[in-house]
């Protein structure tokens, strides 16, 4: 009996160790290619005529566990794919270092300390959230470490306080007016309710949209909700029968679907319009709208191969993953250029990041940064969900 109990406890403990391995807050290393923590560059001494084999570590800061783990895992997997593709194409040995931020500024700050102290890390993909970028910005600036976010959209992040920060997505200052113009003009809404999720992302986009709606003469009311809210029936009850559009600012598309279904069952005429955080197969109520910082990449010829291979390897994806592929590419290309120039340290990579120019990216255009670190010429696209829930590009 005792032996069986011991075996059972042992099995449970072993499984717990395996399971908890994916939940840790500390930095763990995962090699996507052959080498794990290769030096920045090493030329084969015996073959001076050959090109140097470039490599180095790139940290990925994402919410790998916690409430936004679905976003973080998608981002991590796109980063893995980018590194694998790049190493295969360039015979390089770049590797990823995973850093779990749990979409929490405090956790991101803690993680930034260990990233800065790891001299093998020459660039950072992420963090995902604007509040996290604010938290890690000072440490990365001091360390001269370039970091590229694929989803932090608060306009204030590129005001000069974070000189080593770049992003591959347009800001809320672009999204808000684009969405508001469409709601006022194309949909012809007279009254709008904005559901503001109380996060840096939700607050920023809600303010941007509400301001633009007011400027366009559309009556609007902002209802703030906590991030951990589970049911939205009580919020939908506050939506009047004369409201035409409910604009939602969630980062998890399933919540937008909850609101849309709640409107359907309450018999209200309002349609849901989701910000880019809602661009996912989980948001599928026909007649709804959603904006995104790229057209559906499955429809972009340059992205079709990447989208297919990602789906084959990791399953379906939403809007948060593909920009990570591009963010990772920008660091890898900068590192490769720095390596070729013989300056493959953090300073070299940072200097080359400013010269980023990815022609025909999977996001549907060229990627280059302006002097403040924002991506040049980025715009938002708007989709209407058809009866099957599939997004159809309408602007």
């Amino acid at each position, binding site marked *: 009996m005792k032996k069986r*109990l011991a075996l*059972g*406890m042992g099995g*449970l403990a072993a*499984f*717990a160790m*395996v*399971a*908890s391995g*994916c*939940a840790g807050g500390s930095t763990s290393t995962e090699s996507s290619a052959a080498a794990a923590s290769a030096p920045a560059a090493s030329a084969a001494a015996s073959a001076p005529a050959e090109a140097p084999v470039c490599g180095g570590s790139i940290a990925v800061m994402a919410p790998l*566990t*916690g*409430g936004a*783990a*679905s976003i*973080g*895992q*998608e981002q991590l997997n796109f980063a893995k794919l980018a590194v694998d593709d790049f190493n295969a194409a360039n015979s390089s040995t770049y590797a990823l270092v995973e850093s779990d931020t749990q979409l929490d500024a405090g956790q991101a700050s803690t993680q930034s300390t260990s990233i800065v102290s790891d001299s093998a890390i020459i660039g950072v993909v992420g963090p995902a959230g604007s509040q996290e970028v604010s938290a890690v910005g000072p440490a990365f600036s001091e360390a001269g470490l370039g970091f590229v976010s694929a989803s932090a959209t608060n306009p204030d992040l590129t005001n000069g306080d974070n000189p080593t920060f770049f992003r591959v997505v347009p800001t809320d200052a672009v999204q808000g007016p684009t969405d508001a113009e469409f709601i006022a003009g194309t949909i012809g809404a007279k009254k709008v309710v904005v559901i503001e999720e*109380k996060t840096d992302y939700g607050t920023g986009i809600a303010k941007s949209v509400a301001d633009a709606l007011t400027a366009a003469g559309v009556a609007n009311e902002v*209802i*703030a*909700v*906590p991030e*951990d*809210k*589970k*049911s939205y*029936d*009580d*919020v939908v*009850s*506050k939506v009047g029968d004369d409201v035409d559009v409910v604009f939602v600012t969630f980062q*998890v*598309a*399933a*919540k937008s*679907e*909850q609101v849309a*279904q709640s409107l*359907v*069952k*309450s*018999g209200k005429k309002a349609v849901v319009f989701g910000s880019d955080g809602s661009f996912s197969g*989980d948001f599928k109520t026909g007649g709804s709208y959603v904006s995104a910082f790229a057209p559906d990449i499955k429809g972009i010829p340059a992205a079709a191969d990447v989208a297919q291979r990602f789906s084959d390897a990791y*399953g*379906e994806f939403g809007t948060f993953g593909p920009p990570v592929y591009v963010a990772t590419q920008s660091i890898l290309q900068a590192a490769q250029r720095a390596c070729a120039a013989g300056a493959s340290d953090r300073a070299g990579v940072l200097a080359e990041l400013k010269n980023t120019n990815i022609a025909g990216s999977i996001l549907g255009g060229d990627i280059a940064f302006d002097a403040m670190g924002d991506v040049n010429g980025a715009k938002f696209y708007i989709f209407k969900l058809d009866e099957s829930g599939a997004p159809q590009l309408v602007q």
Partner: protein
Amino acid sequence: MEYFGEQLVNGVVMGGVYALIALGYTLIYGVLQFLNLAHGELYMMGAFFGFFTMTALGGPSASAVPVAVMIGIMFIVAMGGGALLGVAVERFAYRPLRNSSRLAPLISALGVSLFLQNAALLLFGARVRLYDTGQFIDLRSGISIGRIRIDPTEMMVVIGALLLMAGLWLMVNRTRLGRAMRAVAVDQDAAVMNGIDVDRTVVWTFAIASGLAGAAGVMSGLLLYPVDQYMGVFAGLKGFSAAVLGGIGSIPGAMLGGFLLGITEALVTGYLNPTYADFIAFLILILVLLIRPRGILGRPAIAKV
């Protein structure tokens, strides 16, 4: 007035889910004076069991069996799976610590909670799953009284919660197993001397409480749609709060606490601001406990002198 009624219905429905979770907490605490802090994770696993059963039966839009049968099977699998998981947790994580200090099983429960969250992440992935109830239940049907609409899933949650509470009350007060549970709750040594198998009684307690958590998980999925590995954290906290508010150890108290918590949240959301809902709900909880430390329907502990 209709708006008030609408928010009242919203509160009662969410309260039903809280109440079902609270029943599990209160049953285990009532028998063992032990807080099973992993109860929220059993609720989460129940929601996943229900979701995967639905998928195995063809999914929400193409069920291989009639919808009522599919829902019935989802409940059976979730409750059965939850019960088995609860028994396993009791056997390996709690029983070895039964005679240790009160803190040890509490820490073990926290460990089980984290273990189950991460096991779900590992086994099911990080992607949020949706029940898509609207694809197999006409959410516009049900009862309408003016603006107030009660859809079939809302009716199912409230009626189901009341039936399960009644069944649990009858089981505890009218059956041989219930008598054994009450005896173990009063004095485990005396129960043994009277021929009661304490281990067996405790196993049944965990099985029933965890089965209720599984049922609550499916109800939550049908009502709210999203299912993810962290859904049990906050729901567990709400269920625990409902149990404490109503008087932990009291079955009607758990129901009352759940409904009160749900209604308070809905009314605060409706008339004040959704961001104040938790603040005011927990403020009320604190005030109630200051005035009546054992909760609304809790009985004062009798200490042997």
